[in-house]
């Protein structure tokens, strides 16, 4: 009888492990496609790009230094960005942190139309037309949202659309305690 206990225990253990992982994938707590960013805790990559809203202006990461900001990577071609747009507008209204947009591989003209129609949650929007800055930030799919501390460290990265839930669970705690 005891001989069968080992295999049975191993089976239950493995089965349990599979069940836990599957349930976590099922309820969206675990995304197997999500790639952990090596940038977390490191200095945010610098950039200097033309502004989408005013082509004669620059959006420069050095000018953002010293205060916390959110960097949101989006594009007018990205359907999920359209979905999250109202959430960003709400965050811009209620939270005391500027959202900087990184308009990824997009035409500034189209982006301006998009923002004129749907509203502009961004304090500034940088035009990353050839996607070079996005590579520096390790972006692999829009939308992606980063939180950068006052000292210029990447605190957190959200892959996929921002939701009120994710904002209040993952970002807000860092906003309040995270003036690091």
């Amino acid at each position, binding site marked *: 009888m005891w001989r069968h206990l080992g295999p049975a225990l191993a089976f239950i253990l493995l089965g349990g492990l599979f069940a836990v992982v599957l349930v976590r994938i099922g309820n969206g707590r675990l995304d197997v496609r999500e790639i*952990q*960013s090596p940038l977390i805790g490191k200095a945010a990559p610098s950039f200097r790009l033309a502004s989408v809203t005013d082509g004669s202006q620059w959006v420069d990461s050095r000018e953002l230094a010293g205060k916390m900001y959110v960097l949101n990577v989006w594009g007018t071609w990205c359907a999920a960005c359209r979905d999250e747009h109202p959430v960003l507008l709400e965050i811009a209204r209620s939270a005391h942190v500027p959202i900087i947009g990184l308009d990824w*591989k997009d035409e500034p003209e189209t982006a301006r139309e998009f923002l004129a129609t749907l509203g502009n949650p961004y304090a500034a929007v940088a035009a990353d037309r050839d996607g*070079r800055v*996005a590579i520096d930030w390790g*972006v692999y799919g829009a939308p992606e949202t980063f939180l950068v501390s006052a000292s210029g460290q990447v605190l957190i990265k959200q892959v996929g659309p921002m939701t009120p839930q994710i904002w209040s669970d993952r970002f807000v705690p860092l906003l309040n305690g995270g003036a690091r």
Partner: protein
Amino acid sequence: MSASRLRRSARGVSSGVAGLGLALLLLLLGPLARAIDNDVAFADALRQGRYEHLTSELRCLVCQNQTVADSNADLAADLRRQVREMIAAGQTDDAIKTYMTERYGDFVLYDPPWTARTYLLWSAPVLLVLIALLSVARVIRRRSRMPWSEDGEATP
């Protein structure tokens, strides 16, 4: 088995053979499919070789099961451009791989390095073989100790 059923099963076998033949033919035609990355990046064979090798070692992060060389995703094209420019600028293969992992993590490499995060991944095959050998050894030892074993090595 009746004659008609025999004929039917013979037909089944022949269509199975035809299907297999078709599958083999398609397999042989596979390499003829044109590559995504058609442009020759470098005129000299050495740098072109490095370029092809590097892009086939980097994972396309959007599609995740394709290499940067095989993918037609926008990001893969951007990463190919990055590799091309870095080779042209005289950077070493290691420098280019470091550049990629600093931004995208070890996941971007199809051949991840031995680090604290990957040691379980790399040692898993060896561990599994060891576990298998140990359990085989245990079973053999137990069987050989059984009372009805032929060589009379019976234990009470």
